[in-house]
């Protein structure tokens, strides 16, 4: 009951908060590597359109953490029009639908590969992004984007299982627990086919990027087996449901688990021993951008160590930024899942790549069929 009241209060105050003061500081309060570099478009009344995930940038709403967009405006004089999306597919649909005029987008790995294939992204000019030197070696030349020609990594993480310590007593949690009848109706599951299929594919020993129709069908069969045990197929509703102890187990992204566990002591997070999906979200410039140089400037700004640190602390996802990683508390570095060992990352995690249209379509059909079956 308390939760509902809090929720309603939040909802009401949120309205007043959003209308609250949002004015940019006169001058930037942070230390920039090369202040001169950011002066180029000063007093030109320029603006760029940034399209990012929800809750995916430090916005000054927490004490002691800067408002990144306001700082950028103060440092460069370029106004940031900031909007958010909830899924890669939503971003893709917006870009495909035409009429979208974005200068910066931050898709995930497989979506970057798809956009490169469909010639939707601009090759980056690394002379304009001196701060790209901070990208960790592990994140250079990824399979989704050769030589990082179109993207600069922003955050990364792994998929694991959030569990309620009061309800789950197993210590060695692996994917098959999501098929354990003991937890019938206590399991939440991803409400998107790619992530859900990945879990079934790991259990069946297939590649996370399989395009084999038989393997995809077998994975769908596996998910169908699980359906009677699943309480609900959800995405960000996981925050509320796990927080209210509505469910015992939910697969989700490590960065969000960090946020959840900070609020609720009784939650834990397990990175399954049998392997998992590793994802990277990276900054890109759409080919349609008219303000490419200002967009490069924005990417460089997000790579400023102080800015990247603020974002890392606010978002809770793992960072691919060397200078930020060095400044992290040992507690975070060694929490067991934010920064798994190189060995684990190398051997047990897989990045998604873009699937063929046929495989995507088949996966979508199988998913619809599974979800509408009784």
């Amino acid at each position, binding site marked *: *009951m308390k*939760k*509902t009241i809090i*929720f*309603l209060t939040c*909802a009401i105050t949120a309205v007043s908060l959003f209308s609250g003061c949002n004015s940019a500081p006169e001058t930037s309060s942070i230390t920039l590597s090369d202040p001169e570099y950011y002066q180029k478009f000063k007093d030109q009344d320029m603006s760029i359109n940034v399209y990012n995930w929800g809750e995916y940038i430090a916005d000054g709403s927490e004490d002691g953490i800067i408002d990144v967009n306001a700082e950028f405006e103060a440092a460069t004089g370029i106004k940031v029009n900031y909007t958010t999306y909830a*899924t890669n*597919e*939503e971003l*893709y*649909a917006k870009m*495909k639908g035409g009429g979208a005029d974005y200068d910066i987008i931050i898709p995930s790995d497989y979506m970057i590969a798809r956009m490169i294939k469909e010639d939707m992204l601009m090759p980056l000019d690394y002379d304009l992004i001196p701060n790209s030197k901070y990208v960790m070696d592990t994140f250079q030349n990824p399979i989704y984007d050769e030589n990082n020609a179109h993207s600069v990594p922003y955050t990364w993480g792994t998929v694991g299982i959030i569990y309620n310590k009061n309800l789950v007593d197993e210590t060695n949690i692996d994917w098959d627990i999501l098929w354990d009848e003991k937890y019938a*109706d206590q399991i939440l599951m991803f*409400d*998107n*086919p*790619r992530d859900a299929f990945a879990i079934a594919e790991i259990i069946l020993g297939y590649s996370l990027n399989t395009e084999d129709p038989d393997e995809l069908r077998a994975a769908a069969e596996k998910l169908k087996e699980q*359906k009677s045990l*699943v*309480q*609900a*197929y*959800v995405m960000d*509703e996981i925050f*509320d*449901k796990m927080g*209210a*102890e*509505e469910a015992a187990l939910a697969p989700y992204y490590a960065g969000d688990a960090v946020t959840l566990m900070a609020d609720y002591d009784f939650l834990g997070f397990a990175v399954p021993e049998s392997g998992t999906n590793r994802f990277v979200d990276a900054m890109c410039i759409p080919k349609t951008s008219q303000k490419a140089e200002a967009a490069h400037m924005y990417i460089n700004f997000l790579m400023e160590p102080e800015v990247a640190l603020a974002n890392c602390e606010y978002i809770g996802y793992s960072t691919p930024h060397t200078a930020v990683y060095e400044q992290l508390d040992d507690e975070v570095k060694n929490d067991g899942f934010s920064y798994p060992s190189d060995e684990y990352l190398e051997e047990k995690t897989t990045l998604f790549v873009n699937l063929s*249209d046929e495989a*995507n*379509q088949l*996966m*979508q059909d199988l*998913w*619809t069929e599974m*979800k*509408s079956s009784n």
Partner: protein
Amino acid sequence: MNQNKKGNGMLSYLTASPYILWMIIFIIVPLAMVAYFAFTDSNGQFTFEYIKSVGQYTNIFIRSIWLAAIATIICFLLAYPVAYILTRLDKNIHSTMIMLVTLPIWMNFLLRTYAWMTLLGNNGIINSILGFIGLGPYKLLNTQGAVVLGMVYNYLPYMILPLYTVMIKIDKSILEAAQDLGCNGAQVIFRVVLPLSVPGITSGITMVFVPAISTFIISRMLGGGSNLLIGDLIEMQFLGNSYNPNLGAAISLILMVIVLIIMTVMNQFDGDDDKVLI
């Protein structure tokens, strides 16, 4: 006389032109685009393939129609007495009561639906209260019943308002005449008020059934994602794993045809000339 009539016609065209323009740009053109996408493939070639492939989702269509119909009937049963009582109330408190009826729609649709998630959950308020008297917990959330509840809760005002608008116009003297001629209370309602309020009933049903059959957020939030409705299916074609606007358009088009058929059948019951148009 003729000229006068012509002048009036001109004037009415002129005054209607802003809406006609609006309608062409924002209703006719988008509908034509939906039809265009439904009958073409990704290369713009004419095809029936997508329209045909909608057939595989028959069970989802049936579930949507079924749930929307139940929600509409419940809305009607709840709304009719309310609307009738409203018309019987003192004029001074009419506007206050109408305001109270519309009060829930002042709050954002998503927020209202979200609130039901916390109410219906296993550890939610309803189950907590039931727990105090030794019952439950019952599985309320993530069921078809929860989806219907969400529809009824969200669309009830849209049933009450048209019913009320029609009923308030019924001449009191007709009701008195019926009573004078020996009708008891029930007979007045069933034999006089009900037939006279048919236009309100049809528009109320339309205003509840149409949004209910195409909703996707209610079924997602309250149905646990496993009670797929047509709205979810359409959304998946645009925001799902495969971007397939042609299939999405085909499903939308067929949904429109189904709604049109149902509404035409509905309107057969409404022979009255002065229909309440939405």
